[in-house]
């Protein structure tokens, strides 16, 4: 059962969202602010994070930043679920590295589809590497690839990197 971390300060929205996810067969952990959310993410290693933006203590942007900084959580699929519906808000969220951005009020199907597709993507990446010699070679190849990317970013060709990331989001 996939584990989803839900970070949302409004009680009703948190309860309902959690209920929708649970009825769809997910194991849901929830936190009422970003700080608690980051702690849960580190300890519980969820498969995906759904996070509000306007929250007390630590807001959604801060939460995403903290998760990105920690190597253990940096790869977690991250979805913003927020009342901030302006185009500029959406761009900011995506540019910070969110994988999806859903505005309130949200449709349950929309949310479930977003969650499912993010999880499937992660699954697809994982499944590609089989626990065989070939898989091992491929993994090493990937690592090589990662090094290449970090080289590119160290040369500050960030534009290129961003483009690559955007393609990833769209996929």
């Amino acid at each position, binding site marked *: 059962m996939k584990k989803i971390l839900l970070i949302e300060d409004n009680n*009703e929205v948190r309860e309902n969202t959690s209920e*929708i996810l649970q009825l769809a067969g997910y194991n849901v952990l929830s936190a009422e602010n970003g700080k608690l959310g980051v702690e849960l993410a580190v300890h519980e290693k969820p498969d995906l994070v759904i996070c509000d933006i306007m929250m007390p203590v630590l807001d959604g942007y801060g939460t995403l930043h903290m998760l990105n900084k920690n190597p253990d959580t940096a790869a977690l699929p991250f979805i913003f679920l927020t009342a901030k519906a*302006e185009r500029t808000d959406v761009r900011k969220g995506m540019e910070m590295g969110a994988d999806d951005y859903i505005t*309130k009020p949200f449709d349950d199907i929309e949310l479930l589809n977003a969650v499912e597709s993010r999880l499937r993507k992660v699954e697809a990446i994982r499944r590609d590497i089989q626990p065989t010699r070939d898989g091992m070679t491929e993994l090493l190849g990937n690592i090589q690839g990662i090094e290449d990317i970090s080289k590119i970013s160290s040369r500050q060709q960030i534009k290129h990197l961003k483009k690559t990331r955007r393609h990833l989001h769209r996929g």
Partner: protein
Amino acid sequence: MTNFPGQGISFETIFNHVNEGVLIVDEEGVIVLSNPKLGEMFRYDDKELYGRKVEVLIPGVLTRRHEEYRKTYMKNPVKRPMGRNMTLHGRRKDGREFPIEISLSYYHSEGAVFVIAFIIDITDRFEQQAHIERMNGELKSLNESLEKKVAERTLVLKEALHELEISRDDLSQALENEKGLNELKSRFISTASHEFRTPLSTILSSVSLIQKYTQSQDQENRERHILKIKNAVSGLTEILNDFLSLGKLEEGKMSAKPAAHDIFVLIRDVVSDINSIVRSGQSITYNQGSFELMIDKQLLRNVMFNLLSNAIKFSPEGAEIDVHVDDEGEEVVVAVKDQGIGISEADMKNLYGRFFRGENAIAIPGTGLGLNIVTKYLELMQGRITCTSVLNEGTTFYIHLPKTKSN
């Protein structure tokens, strides 16, 4: 000097042909000699003037004065050249006067004094002068009228400038207002967006969930979500009411309708109503007493409801909220004290501004309208609000209500 071109010209020739009138008068003012030019000037025949007093050549009104003058002069004669800026007039035989210039000189002969006068007719010059003066006058008046016109135009310009300044000020004022309005609008949109979207999320997700609970044993879940929807709707209605009362206040459609009420009873009623929304463990205390005040009951209820729901919203669970009514002479002061998050000094300035949310209140739901509406209500009641606060310790709002009976 025996042979020169003028030889043979007698002084008589000069006397007879010179262009100045020449006149010799004895001590008594009697004309003893005059040349033809003088006769021509004064329209007398040759020698007609001989033996007559010089005053015959003086304008009538001046003859007496001239006699006096002449007598004084004879006692102490002096030479006087022409053109000393004196306007003198001669009198012709026909009585007509004309401007002249005179030079005076004298000589002694056989113990007597004789005065020689050279006279020129300056009618032309006089007329020219008069003309020049007239022209000058005209020029001057033209100048003056020009100056006046310039002054008038300057004034018009000044007025136009002033009007321009006023309209510029009006414009910049309008621009400021427009800017303020715009800012208000954008703040309204962002507030409304957040405050509406959150309860709408609850409603939509509860509806989705009700749809999923299709079995009859799910009735409890359905009811749970129906309650959530109802709460969310009433939350939305409250926000809407805030906006509406703000609109009404803006349009000046509200006024205070004071009547005699016991303030303690009013406070007790509000507290008992609001007790239904306190968070877990929170309690509201209030002091007992009795004091009758002329007051608009509904407005005071709204003010108290607003302040108390703020106290509840910004205080943690289990916190105590205290309401205290005090008679302070000219006014009654109601203090609402909470143990909430407090208000920073920087936020104090804008506390009562429309759509204003404190820096530490951003994550707490609210429209930023409550305190703005409270101040407007208090204005209607001729009251006012003050506040003291310590961050993370709590806030106390004081509403000051005047005791005036006429209110």
